[in-house]
């Protein structure tokens, strides 16, 4: 009898999702716990999913499913002719969330914008160090402290950003998660109560969902914001059921315990495609995985040697073995989902014989080199060790003897930056703001040598193009410059470009209008249930 009762309860639970369709509760089986709810403090996508992507708005936002920037809390903006002043005109009548722990007395205005940026920028701002070790990782990482001279309130609904130098990607930067707009009124109240740390635990935003509760490592609950400025969300309750194991997530999806799950196991994809209850969405990810030679060290300072090695790599075999099909061969240093992607750029052909001949022409008949394999999984490289082994076999065919080296992740990142590093490094990048500059300047610019430019590659013709593109604000003109830069990159081959991952997103059949976010986010505003 008891067994029966339990079975009935479990059955009722499995049906819970179906029953909840009327009440419109969407359950998302997320992969991990958020670090906190103040997105500006963090850099992890899991944290942004739980905070900025549901609870907050920015001045401008990426249109859902694209890398295109659209108005949000700012209805429009003007840029001065010298590119140094950005004036934002703010939306009127936007309400902050009313919850058990806070009731706003006024609408969103310029004070909130100034507060949201000044707390990150000004070292003696009361909220600059409101939690221990507040690092403002993204704000600093995107060079905002050097870039922004001031953030000024012109009037209640106008804010002016003054820059130290022109920077075309500025608008895209302001659509990033760290630029989420906080309520100054709420922050002031917390400060007066001596509970500033709650800003990171009980968030108040203007976004489509209100935070309701978080049970650590288990569940996050949200309610639709009834007075959302862009119209109430189609679902009433949003639940994140934190489920770290990918196979278990799939079982939950099948059992109807959740509607949407991220990061499926590549091995499960075939089953999912044949599963009648599940729709498998897919899109190329905003990332690139590469092998960066050290172009400062012989013989890799020789373009022909690099080209020859690129031709020795069998990328199709890597895609099959390492990505299990969930990837696409990369020819460019930027992914296809980014504007200015040059689709007709020819990749180095796989031709070991020609590669061997080219190496011989450069006087190389046998060569010892190292390939560094990352110790962690990333979308752009799910198994670096395996990838390195495949390359080892490929290179052996052209007389190059490869030793694979590995370090702990932190150590790997640090040592791979060194200018005199011995060996080629497997690494990759996931875009932050959908701007080509975020790939080309960050990973291949002269300033980044000894830093995130793992190829240690500083090539003046390339540098001139990307620097020019940084200050021009016309997108058509920037596109041309970046296209040329990609051609120069391919000729010079500082990297072997390997793959762009393909993102798979299994959702249940009753989920309507879920769109994969190119930035790897999971956004539930605009999603409905049948």
């Amino acid at each position, binding site marked *: 009898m008891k067994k029966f*009762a*339990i*079975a009935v*309860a*479990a*059955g*009722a*639970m*499995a049906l*819970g999702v179906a029953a*909840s369709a009327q009440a419109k*509760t969407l*359950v998302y089986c997320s992969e*991990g716990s958020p*670090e*906190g709810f103040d997105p500006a*403090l963090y*850099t992890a996508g899991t944290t942004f999913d739980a905070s900025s992507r549901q609870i907050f708005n920015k001045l401008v936002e990426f249109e859902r499913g694209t890398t295109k920037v659209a108005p949000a809390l700012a209805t429009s903006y003007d840029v001065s002719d010298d590119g140094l002043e950005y004036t934002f005109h703010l939306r009127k009548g936007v309400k902050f969330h009313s919850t058990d722990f806070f009731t706003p007395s006024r609408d969103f205005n310029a004070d909130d914008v100034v507060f949201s940026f000044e707390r990150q920028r000004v070292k003696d701002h009361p909220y600059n160090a409101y939690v*221990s*070790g*507040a*690092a403002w*990782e993204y704000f600093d*990482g995107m060079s905002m402290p050097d870039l922004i001279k001031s953030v000024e309130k012109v009037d209640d609904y106008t804010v002016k950003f003054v820059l130290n130098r022109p920077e075309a990607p500025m608008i895209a930067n302001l659509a990033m998660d760290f630029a989420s707009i906080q309520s100054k009124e709420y922050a002031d109240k917390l400060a007066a109560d001596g509970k500033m*740390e709650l800003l*990171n*635990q009980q968030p108040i935003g203007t976004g489509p969902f209100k935070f309701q*509760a978080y*049970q*650590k*490592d*288990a*569940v996050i*609950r949200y309610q639709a914001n009834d007075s959302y400025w862009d119209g109430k969300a189609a679902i009433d309750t949003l639940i994140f*059921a*934190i*489920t*770290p*194991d990918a*196979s*278990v997530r799939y*079982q*939950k999806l*099948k*059992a109807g*315990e959740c509607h949407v799950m991220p990061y499926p196991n590549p091995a499960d994809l075939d089953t999912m495609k044949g599963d009648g209850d599940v729709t498998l969405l897919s899109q190329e990810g905003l990332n690139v995985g590469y092998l960066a030679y050290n172009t400062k060290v012989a013989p890799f300072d020789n373009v022909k040697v690099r080209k020859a090695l690129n031709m020795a790599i069998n990328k199709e075999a890597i895609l099959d073995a390492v990505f299990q099909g969930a990837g696409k061969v990369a020819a460019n240093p930027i992914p296809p989902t980014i504007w200015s992607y040059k689709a007709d750029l020819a990749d180095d052909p796989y031709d070991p014989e020609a590669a061997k001949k080219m190496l011989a022409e450069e006087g190389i008949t046998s060569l010892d080199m190292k390939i560094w394999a990352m110790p962690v999984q990333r979308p752009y490289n799910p198994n670096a060790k395996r990838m390195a082994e495949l390359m080892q076999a490929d290179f052996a065919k052209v007389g190059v003897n490869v030793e694979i080296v590995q*370090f*702990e*992740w*932190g*150590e790997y*990142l*640090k040592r791979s*930056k060194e200018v005199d590093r011995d060996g080629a490094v497997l*690494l*990759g*990048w*996931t875009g932050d703001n959908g701007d080509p500059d975020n790939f080309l300047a960050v990973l291949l610019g002269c300033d980044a040598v000894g*830093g*995130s430019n793992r190829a240690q590659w500083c090539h003046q013709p390339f540098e001139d193009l990307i620097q020019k593109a940084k200050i021009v604000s016309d997108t058509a003109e920037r596109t041309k410059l970046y296209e040329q830069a990609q051609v120069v990159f391919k000729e010079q081959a500082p990297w072997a470009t390997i793959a762009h991952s393909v993102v798979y997103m299994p959702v249940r059949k009753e989920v309507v209008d879920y769109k994969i976010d190119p930035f790897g986010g999971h956004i539930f505003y605009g999603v409905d249930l049948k």
Partner: protein
Amino acid sequence: MGAGGLGPPPSSQQAYFEKIHMLKLLLRRVGLMIPTFIGATLLSFMFIRMLPGDPVLLMAGERGMTEERYQRLLHEFGFDRPYWEQYLDYLWGVMQGDLGESFRTKVPVLQEFLTLFPATVELSLCAMFLATVLGIPAGVIAAIRRGKALDHVTMGTALVGYSMPIFWWALMLIIVVSGMLQLTPVSGRISFLFFFEPVTGFMLIDSLLSDQKGAFLSAVSHLILPSIVLGTIPLAVVARQTRSAMLEVLGEDYVRTARAKGLSPFRVIGIHALRNALIPVTTTIGLQIGMLFGGAILTETIFAWPGIGKWMIDSVYSRDYEVVQGGLLMIAIIVMVVNLAVDLLYGLINPKIRH
């Protein structure tokens, strides 16, 4: 004792000496805890720092940071100070009940621990309950049927259980029991249909307190699979231990005497033999509780069970020093306190130990 050979000592005097002895025992044990405690703080402090990996660099990830910013952050987090200084600082905090704040979540470590610990305890107790309730009868049956088919089947199953990879076992159960048969939910602690603020942190109790219909049953159904998975190895150990202890006891003279007296087999086995066999079994169960923490890490990860096992593992990966050292210390303290309680309990039960 004090009264010597002049007849039975006055009972009040005896009680007085007993108390003195117990107090001495208590003081001695507590005294021993101080160096153990300091050792635990030192070990927990050193353990995470011995692993390669720099939390600041891990935080920056692929993006990296300038040398100037790196140095500034090291300084802000206090990682640039000599180890002994960091340790003393940590020890000073611990003395005041402050375990520091998580590097990642910025929440006090103690607060996180107290939030998550009940989930681990609840799961461990259920797993242990299962192991005991099934393991002891299985062992007894195997002992009675020694050498027969039932013995071989029971012990063979126990051996399989003991060698079962937890990860595989958990997934198999989920796929078959939750997926195909749909008898239990896949993971989590309670259905999302129920929502109430935690009072004790124990879902079984909180669901009863919540007064929401079906909440308790939902909590129970969520506990079944993780308890089976976590309880499998202890179950096998308990069954095997019970069997061997029973076999030893069944050969004793007093059991033969009991049988000769014509007592029913139930009385012989259930009362005379089992009681004595349970002593080593109890010790084994006690030891298994410590081992459960290890198994809990995997079980919690698979079943999305919000306990301290998963919390600690995540913190090791992100080199969250404060959480790892604080968590280890809390576990060490709990083990120490439990040991102390057990020692004192033995003292109360068995006068020999008191002396």
